[in-house]
C-alpha cells in the first residue's frame, strides 16, 4: 500500500538555510546538507528546498547546495522558488534535484508547465499554488507571497495545471501559512478531489493532529511542514506515530534502516 508522505520544507537563501532545524549539535546549522542529513536519518519521506534568494545573481549558490545535498542524501528532493524557464529546471535536475516546483512562472505563462512536462516528464514537475479565501467556499490564486491576486479560481487552476502536465500540486493556504492554526481543510479537500494527481497540503501546521487532518479530512496525498520540525517541537517519528494512530498508512523508515543494518 502506498504510504502518505511527510515532507519537511527548508527555506534556503543564498545557499544557506534560513529556516531550518534549530538543533544545537549541528556544526553548521546553515548548511543545507547538514539539515538534509538530519531529516534523512529521521525518516522524512522527501525533502523540499524553497529558495528565497532575492537576487537571481546568487542562483549558483542554490545549485551548489542542491548538488552537495544530492551527493549525500538518497531521498527525493524538490526545489522551488524562482523556477522560470526550462533551462532553470534542467540545471536543477542536473544538480541532483528530482522535482522542480513552479509557482509564479506558471501564472505568468501557463504554457510553461506543459512545455516543462513534455521536456522532463510530469513526474518531476510540481505546480505550487498559493491560495487565499476570497468568499465563502471560494479561493483565489495569489502570487508574490499572497500580495498579488491573479483572478484565477484555485480549484479550476489546479485542475488546469494537472491537465497541462503537473505531476503534483503543492497547495499552500496563504490564510493559514505561519498561523499554526492547521491546514485550510475545505480548500485542500476541494482541490484534492478535483485533480487526478497527488496534492501536498501546506500552510498552517501547528500540531501533529493538523498533519493527520490534512489527509483524513483534506484528502491530501502528502503533508508538508516547516517550523514544527525545525524548532524541535516535534520529531518526524512522533508525527508519523500520530498519523498512524489516526489510521493513516505511513512508512517507518527508522525500523527499516535498523533491520537493514542487522542484515548487513
Amino acid at each position: 500500500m502506498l504510504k502518505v508522505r511527510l515532507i519537511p520544507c527548508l527555506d534556503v537563501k543564498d545557499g544557506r538555510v534560513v529556516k531550518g532545524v534549530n538543533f544545537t549539535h549541528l556544526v553548521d546549522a546553515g548548511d543545507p546538507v547538514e539539515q538534509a542529513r538530519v531529516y534523512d536519518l529521521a525518516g522524512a519521506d522527501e525533502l523540499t528546498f524553497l529558495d528565497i534568494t532575492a537576487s537571481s545573481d546568487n542562483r549558483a549558490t542554490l545549485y551548489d547546495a542542491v548538488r552537495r545535498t544530492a551527493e549525500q542524501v538518497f531521498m527525493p528532493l524538490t526545489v522551488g522558488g524562482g523556477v522560470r524557464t526550462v533551462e532553470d529546471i534542467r540545471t536543477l535536475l542536473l544538480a541532483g534535484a528530482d522535482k522542480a516546483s513552479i509557482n509564479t512562472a506558471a501564472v505568468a505563462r501557463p504554457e510553461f508547465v506543459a512545455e516543462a512536462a513534455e521536456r522532463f516528464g510530469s513526474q518531476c514537475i510540481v505546480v505550487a499554488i498559493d491560495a487565499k479565501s476570497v468568499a465563502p467556499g471560494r479561493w483565489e490564486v495569489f502570487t508574490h507571497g499572497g500580495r498579488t491576486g491573479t483572478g484565477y479560481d484555485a480549484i479550476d487552476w489546479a485542475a488546469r495545471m494537472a491537465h497541462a502536465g503537473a505531476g503534483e500540486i503543492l497547495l499552500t493556504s496563504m490564510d493559514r501559512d505561519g498561523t499554526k492554526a492547521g491546514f485550510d481543510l475545505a480548500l485542500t479537500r476541494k482541490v484534492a478531489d478535483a485533480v487526478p494527481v497527488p496534492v501536498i497540503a501546506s500552510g498552517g501546521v501547528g500540531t501533529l493532529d493538523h498533519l493527520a487532518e490534512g489527509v483524513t479530512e483534506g484528502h491530501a496525498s502528502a503533508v508538508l511542514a516547516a517550523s514544527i520540525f525545525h524548532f524541535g517541537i516535534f520529531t518526524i517519528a512522533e508525527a508519523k506515530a500520530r498519523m498512524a494512530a489516526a489510521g493513516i498508512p505511513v512508512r517507518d523508515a527508522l525500523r527499516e534502516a535498523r533491520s537493514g543494518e542487522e542484515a548487513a
Partner: protein
Amino acid sequence: METVAIVDCGSGNLKSAAKAFERAAAEAVRGFTVTVTADPEIVRRADRVALPGQGAFAAVLAGVAAVPGMREALEEVAIERARPFFGICVGMQLMATRGLEHGEHIGFGWIPGEVIPLTPSDAALKVPHMGWNDLEIDRPDHPVMRGVKSGDHAYFVHSYRFICANAADAVAHADYGGPVVAVIGRDNLIGTQFHPEKSQAVGLALISAFLDWRP
C-alpha cells in the same frame, strides 16, 4: 577493478543514480570505477551497466537511439556478453517487448512483456503512483534481493507499468489498486520500477547486491 557504466542518454536525473552507485561501490569489498557516460565504446566494454530513465517511454527510447551505436552497445554488453545490467524506472521498462505510452513503441525485447497505463482498481488512487510503497518479494532467492525483504519500502514515481509475459520474470511487486511489478529479473538482467537511488537504505542495499551479483 570492475567498471560500472551509468548510461547517459539525456534523460532525467543521472546525478543521484551515479552518486548512489558510487556510495555502494565505495562500501564494497571489491573495487569499482563508476562512470556516467554517453560513449557506446565505454558501455560496450563495461563490466556492469545501469540504464536510468525518466519521462516517457518513447522519449527515453529516442534518447538511446540518438546516440550512434548506443543501442548496439547495450545489446552487446547485456545480451551477447551477458554482463549484469540494471534498468531503472523507464530504463527497466525499455527491456519490454513493447511500450504503449503515447502510441506503440518497440522496446529492447529482452524481457517478454508490455508496458501499459497504470489503472488502479480504486478510483481514489492517484496517477502517477508517487511515493513510498512496500514491496512483496516474489523471488526471495534472487541474489539482488538479498538485502531487501517483503514489507520494505521503495520510492516509486510512474504512470505506466510492466506486465511480464512470464510470471517467473517478476521478482517483486507492490500493491496499488492491484499488483504492480516492482522488480523484474531474467538471467543477467534486473530492473526496478522504483528509484533505488531515492530509496534510502533499501535502495543502497539493492545496488550493493547488484554490484556483488555474478549471474
